[in-house]
């Protein structure tokens, strides 16, 4: 479930990035790459787990499914927080810089 939720987040972020490309003022490309990186890593994890569990891998317990979904949404939220920090730190629109410059004047 965590993998699925992260893949959907990566697809949505990529669509939003593509819609606004080549303009990437909002650094959506960074967010999409972060989610894709995590998705690829979880895919590897899932493949290794499948090799170990075989068909059991596709029959998870309901409690595990709920826990994994909760984790997936938390992962998406953390990705958004990291992206927000990157966005404000890089400040591509110069909003924060101009605000501080105005205060200095």
């Amino acid at each position, binding site marked *: 479930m965590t993998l699925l939720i992260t893949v959907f987040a990566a697809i949505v972020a990529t669509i939003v990035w593509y819609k606004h490309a080549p303009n990437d003022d909002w650094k959506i490309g*960074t967010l999409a790459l972060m989610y*894709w*990186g*995590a998705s690829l*890593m979880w895919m*590897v*994890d899932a493949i290794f787990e499948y090799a170990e569990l075989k068909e059991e891998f596709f029959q998870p317990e309901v409690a595990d499914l709920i826990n994994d979904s909760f*984790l997936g949404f938390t992962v998406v939220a953390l990705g958004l927080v990291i992206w927000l920090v990157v966005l404000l730190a890089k400040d591509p629109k110069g909003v924060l810089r101009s605000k501080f410059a105005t205060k200095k004047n």
Partner: protein
Amino acid sequence: MACFLVPTAEAIVTTIAAKVMAKKEKNMEIHHEGGSSEIIEKSRFSRKLGWLNNMLWGGSALLALEHVWHGEVVPWFPFLTAATDAADRAEMLHEMATVGVTMALLVTTAWAIMVLVSTHLEKSAAKEAKIDTAEKAVVPVSEKE
């Protein structure tokens, strides 16, 4: 257990490499014998390396959260619960060598494909631009005739 540490280690290396490359690319200026100099257009490989950094750092950070979630990473020494027991430590190292290395390889392969595709697109765009310029240059000649 600690598979995310392998992509994290790769991310540290590629981040340093991207920083060094970006500095070198900025200083790419050719001085000719006659005294003139020419600034070569900045190769954007460091920017492309940034894609890999984003994937590795982002993926590692999100996977680290999963390990905290499952109690495999703790905020006290030695930070990895598997590191306290010898048998668990061996299992952890085995997982890093198999799952962790495969993760790093897959992300790097995906990035390499992205670089190849973008380089191909850049080359074909440059070719089209050349053809356009050549066609535009030909027009006034034919008009004169």
